[in-house]
């Protein structure tokens, strides 16, 4: 793991509910965060082993009609997860 490889907060629960949509539930705050199917795909890559570039590649391979700026979408999405405390980066040292 490194600073450019995001990791899911291990306390957070992924509840896959209807039609591949899902909710991230943080039991420490009791707050939920809705994910569409692409968000679920990205979330499952947040294992500290994949860079954002790796994740974008997985999205391109797995989804149809992927927009050209998917890289920026993924970056913004992961940044929001980090801001919400749902994901993070390992701090070196």
């Amino acid at each position, binding site marked *: 793991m490194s600073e450019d490889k995001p990791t899911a907060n291990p*306390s*957070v*629960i*992924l*509840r*896959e*509910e*209807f039609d591949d949509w899902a909710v991230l*539930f943080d*039991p*420490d705050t*009791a707050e939920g965060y809705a994910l569409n199917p692409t968000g679920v795909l990205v979330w499952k890559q947040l294992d500290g082993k994949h860079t954002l570039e790796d994740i974008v590649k997985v999205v391109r391979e797995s989804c149809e009609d992927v927009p050209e700026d998917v890289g920026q979408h993924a970056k913004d999405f992961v940044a929001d997860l980090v801001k919400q405390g749902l994901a993070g980066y390992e701090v070196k040292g």
Partner: protein
Amino acid sequence: MTSPAAEKPARRLRLMRTPKSVDIDITDRCNLRCRYCYFFTSPADVKQDLPRDEWLRFFEELNRCAVTEVCLAGGEPFIREDLPDLIRGIVRNRMRFSILSNGTLITDDLAAFLASTGRCNYVQVSIDGSIPITHDSFRGQGTFYKAVEGIRTLQRNGVSAAVRVTIHRQNVRDLDNIARLLLEEIGLPSFSTNSAGYMGLCQKNTEQVQLSSEERYLAMTTLLKLVKKYEGRISAQAGPLAEGRDWLKMEKARREGLDSLPDRGYLTGCGCPFSKIAVRSDGVYVPCNMLSHIELGRINRDSLQDIWQNHPDLWKIRERRSKPLGDFEFCRGCLYLSYCTGNCPALAYALLGQVDHPSPDACLRKYLEEGGRLPEESPE
């Protein structure tokens, strides 16, 4: 009667992959014997408690199934000496929890521990009176002061205290004072109400416990007035307040000649089996702690996800929603048919021995036929 939904339920009824929450009777034991307790002598009262390690193993499965919350009840959860170990197991497995309690066994140490987890949604304590004589009448001498002290102990330690008031014949004239005690003196943000249902020990004591039509009218009228006074800080999902609101809505729809109300006219009175499941104190899965005679499997032996998605008895309860009330002789000719939900399946079972039937308990037509009156229109 066979509906398309009954033939192919998965196509009509959307279901989460796993339950969102699980209601657990964590013990069969209690230090009290409240005279209307739904639990004792009901099918939930199995005279067996599972050891700690069985529950801890089960919590690991709940984690794998992405269950977010458990509600611990019984019996009295605080009677278990290993309750802190069980709660640590819940927290370790990424869940939040709530506890239903009589409030008499809550100590500062336990409350401080609950607060320290950061995962306790609330502890619900039962308070049935503003003074000992009304509360203790069915719960036992000395329980009022202990329960109030239990609430204060929770508050002192920063645990969210919820209160449920069960309305019965001994406290129906004490509701104003109960509201004042809870909302003004104790300073709770809100409390909820219900009434003693015809289950468990209540079945033996129904004459002393359950409200007459006139008392039901009094309870509805008083509670609707209190809701207005306290600006919505009193709630109910069943019992006189819920009935008062619902029946007024039904009467208004009838008077205005509406064809129907949304999601009504069928057995839609219970949505629980779409989001949660329950476990008895012996580890047997049941659809609800009040439908504990329907055994679905056993924890740590049968897969929760498999039971949730595939058990025919669970689907049968979910499919109640597709059964029109007009198909039941009980409802035939009722002017409220298209505005009614058929109410609680557990009460239907307790009263008639049938789950797939409207419950007579919260039936507006029956209430009116027995001399009941509706409260004044929209006092809220």
